[in-house]
């Protein structure tokens, strides 16, 4: 898919935010925090992370009710909790709110990459930027970043979230039937794409940092 837009500072009222357009998939993520944990009466010396993913009514081609996507929320949470340094904001909570404006395929990967950009924009300390890439297997061929139509007829999907600089995988989900050579190939594809995406994200952050200096 074509990476058209990647920018930070989309929402001025949030601590940090990012907007991404990958082909037809448009996602906006805003990060609030670290701010006071309302629920936590118990002292905890690590911070808390709260993720929420929701779809707008007009996001998918068929009119769906814009609901909170619990599945994606928990997957985003798992992807981010391995990379944020929770010890740096004890007793407080970081809230990550993601909104999918238009769903054109590979939604979760775009969400995760955009969320890590928003967290970096908010100044939350992380071990590394995380990038997420998904690969679809149709018959014998693998395709990276599938669009909705390709996802509809896929035989298997492979979504990987990794830290490009540390060369570590923080989340991996595979569905469908895969042979080991296919998995190897898909993993290599994802790692290569992740490092490229990581560089693009870094450039974007550098640009916005130098723009705010002026």
């Amino acid at each position, binding site marked *: 898919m074509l990476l058209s837009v990647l920018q930070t500072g989309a929402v001025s009222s949030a601590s940090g935010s990012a907007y991404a357009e990958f082909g037809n998939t448009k996602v906006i993520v805003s990060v609030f925090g670290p701010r006071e944990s309302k629920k936590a009466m118990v002292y905890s010396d690590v911070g808390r992370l709260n993720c929420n993913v929701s*779809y707008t009514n007009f*996001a*998918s081609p*068929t009119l*769906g009710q814009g609901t909170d*996507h*619990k*599945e*994606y929320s*928990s997957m985003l949470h*798992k992807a981010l*909790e*391995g*990379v944020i340094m929770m010890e740096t904001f004890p007793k407080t909570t970081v809230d990550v709110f993601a909104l*999918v404006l238009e*769903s054109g395929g590979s*939604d979760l990967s775009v969400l995760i990459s955009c969320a890590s950009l928003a967290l970096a924009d908010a100044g939350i300390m992380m071990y590394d930027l995380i990038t997420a890439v998904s690969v679809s297997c149709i018959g014998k061929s693998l395709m990276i970043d599938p669009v*909705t139509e390709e*996802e*509809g007829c*896929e*035989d*298997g*999907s492979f979504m990987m979230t*990794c*830290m490009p600089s*540390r*060369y*570590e*995988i*923080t*989340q*991996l*989900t*595979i*569905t*469908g*039937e*895969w*042979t*080991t050579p296919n*998995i*190897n190939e898909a*993993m290599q594809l994802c*790692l290569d794409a992740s490092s490229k995406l990581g560089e693009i994200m870094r450039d974007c952050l550098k640009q916005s940092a130098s723009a705010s200096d002026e």
Partner: protein
Amino acid sequence: MGLSLGEQHFIKGGIAQDLRTDGRKRLTYRPIYVETGVIPQANGSARVRIGGTDVIASVKAEIGRPSSLQPDKGKVAVFIDCSPTAEPTFGGRGGEELSSELALALQRCLLGGKSGAGLQSSIHVLVPGAGINLSSLLIKEGKVCWDLYIDGLVISSDGNLLDALGAAIKAALTNTAIPKVNVSAEVADDEQPEIDISDEEYLQFDTSSVPVIVTLTKVGTHYIVDATAEEESQMSSAVSISVNRTGHICGLTKRSGSGLDPSVILDMISVAKHVTETLMSKLDSEISAAEACEDES
């Protein structure tokens, strides 16, 4: 889980030396006990005990309409409930997060792909080649199909819930008998056909392609299979891999924890395949023994 520093070192040290606290080797499972037909009203059910972990799975089949996206296939939904008898914290909303995580992982392994965003996430469409053959649930294309509701209940939790649930669902599906349905009358395209559900004749579900799930827990630099709750508290991360009879990976979920090097994941996949061979044959023999027991009684 409250463990003292000494206990933590003991667990980690033991795993490093291939001798766990209960005497097992790293890649050995605890004894697995399977009982089938534990819930008479359900179409199929099974209870699986792996060490201290006790789970029950039940399968109920109801007549429903196939979805318009896949008119030639039936539908399956998986729900998991963590009972407060296992852990007091599971009462009320407490176990909800764990239940949905387990249900998601099981759906992924048994059914393959998910439906697209915006659709109800509890009913999923099939990806060919994955565990359950949904075409066998069809009665009349586009009109009538079987809806399978698979429910898992965690009664006692001592680690390795996902593997136990996977085994229980596999056993419950083997035990499932779907009544034979005769479509009585031929009707026009837009009307619902009349169906006659037979009381005597049953069809056994074909479970030869249902995969087993193996969870590999990484503690220090080694992996263990079938972790107890104590060992799980010391893990750095865990990967659950579902492998079917032909040795293909049907699903993989990396559970929360720290990041893993890609070579570690590939290594885990080959270890999982190796472990699956023994686990699958053990499970098959246990299930057929349980079915034979049930037939006699």
